[in-house]
């Protein structure tokens, strides 16, 4: 019987990334470059008059992209998986996101990340399928988004 090359990984261990403040400039750049032109995201007067939070909100898919990057590049767990366990992402397979609260200009985000599961790939010998879960947290400890990322990985 072949040994599971993905045994021993720290499944369930949670870590928090460094934080990232979404400045007004970054908010505008991210909104514009992704063509997110709805008034909820681009019109401050509309935000004041038509929302309960009184501001523009960052588009949900932008929020999930920022939190996924915090999780992948700025969390101690992701660093440990790379450096201690030799885990490397070969490809991104899928992402699921749920948006739970708005992200406004000036908000600060962190990603709480954990490895939910990892198993050998059935179709790609030598590779594995890792499922990462990330909670995007703001400065008030409110969960703004929940992500599930499925990655094709290899272990060096």
């Amino acid at each position: 019987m072949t040994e599971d090359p993905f045994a021993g990984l720290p499944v369930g261990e949670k870590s928090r990334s460094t934080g990232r403040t979404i400045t007004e400039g970054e908010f505008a750049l991210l909104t514009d470059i992704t063509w997110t032109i709805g008034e909820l995201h681009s019109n401050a007067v509309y935000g004041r008059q038509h929302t309960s939070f009184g501001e523009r909100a960052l588009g949900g898919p932008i929020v999930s992209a920022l939190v996924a990057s915090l999780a992948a590049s700025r969390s101690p767990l992701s660093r440990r998986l790379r450096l201690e366990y030799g885990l490397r992402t070969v490809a991104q397979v899928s992402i699921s996101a749920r948006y739970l609260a708005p992200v406004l200009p000036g908000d600060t985000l962190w990603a709480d990340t954990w490895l939910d599961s990892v198993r050998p790939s059935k179709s790609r010998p030598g590779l594995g399928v890792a499922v990462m879960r990330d909670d995007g947290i703001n400065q008030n400890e409110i969960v703004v988004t929940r992500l599930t990322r499925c990655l094709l990985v290899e272990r060096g």
Partner: protein
Amino acid sequence: MTQPPDVEDALLGGLPIGSTGRSVGRTISDGEFTLLNTLSWSFSGERVLDGPILTALVAGMHSSGDHFEEIRRSFCVKFLAVMGLDAHYRAPVVPGDTIWVDSTLVSARASASRPGAGVMLFRDVVRNQRDEVVLEMERPMLFERRAPEPEPAPEPGP
């Protein structure tokens, strides 16, 4: 929570379920690629557009295009929020690629938790310049219906 039939009809009646629309194409130039990966802190070093930021581009391409605007204007829809997304990456997008988004309004239903609001489900299929599918995605969006604009008063006769 079930809504009365007349409320549900006012919310969902006439919506163009099954309608589709193709976005304009968008070439991801080298400059945009660098900006997108840098702004999103995608530091992998790969010359491949990061998957999650690709989903943001696709959502923007649809919501800035004719299909979305037609639903918004012709059916008096006010979109309130994207509730989530489920995306599957099928092929890499690299600098210089051009992508198009084919979007379909798959379904609409009353919201279970927000009286008077509904949830539309959009399905996006993203293709590149070689007609390869690079991404498939579903996005539920929370919406309300507004009262139609009143008909303009007829011009006074001679």
